[in-house]
């Protein structure tokens, strides 16, 4: 599912390099400590997360190291 990121993560992402035209691949850690690797963020503002993560807050984010 696509989730709109809070502005703080958008501000973080625009300071990071892209992975391709218009997107970044990131690793995230959620508030419940679940780690999800290599998810895609479009335009530094829309993240693609598994369906069961809709209500989860993102605690940590970094650019995926492929």
């Amino acid at each position: 599912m696509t989730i709109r990121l809070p502005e703080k993560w958008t501000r973080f992402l625009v300071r990071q390099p892209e992975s391709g035209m218009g997107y970044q691949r990131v690793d995230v850690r959620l508030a419940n400590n679940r780690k999800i690797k290599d998810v895609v963020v479009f335009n530094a503002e829309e993240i693609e997360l598994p369906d069961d993560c809709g209500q989860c807050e993102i605690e940590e984010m970094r650019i995926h190291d492929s």
Partner: protein
Amino acid sequence: MELLNEDRQSELLSQPESGMGYQNVTIMLRGEEERRGTVFNTEYLLYSEEPVSLLQRITEPSQRLLMSERKELGVGERILSLKVIQSETRLSSRVRESSLPKTTSSGADEAAEEELQEEEEFKRFSAYANDRRVTPSRGLLPGTYATTAEDAKQVKTGRDAVKRYALPNPKPAVHVFTIDPPVRTKLKRGIAQPAYGQPGGGVEVIFVKGSPDKTVTGPVQIPP
């Protein structure tokens, strides 16, 4: 087991076989680690832990329906990319290739950094009119991707851009920005590699340190 769509099939057709009629692959799934499997005829993906008997069942329509109902058969919605596992022979030949002069057959991220020697125009295709990589002062942020204006001539629609630059966002990239960077701008050039079910093949350029203010115009809109 997954039934692969035509885009996935095209992605696999651009990669070598592992043996006659099959390809051993690593599969990147959305939100998960890598998995391994085998693709038959670029059409049926069998994960490594699944029994090969599924392959026989899938050819029978009634069994296929049953497999779908039992969720034994997917349509690859969660697949981000498929990559054929290179054999040792291929890897060693790759090592030899790497000693040859650098070509542009790999992605821009693997390319050597260069400085723009003369004026050249670039284009950036985006699904968003409010592209976040374009600064309010009409520059580009460091690490932003674009393509050459020459390559962009091949792109007539937003969907063309998604295919040619292997973009993961299926939304047509209909907003086109033009970038006119000054000479000595630091760039990396390469070829978009197949990914996300898209064939790639277009020129991709990374603006390593971005592009200064007032070098970006647009966007103009193209058909979806």
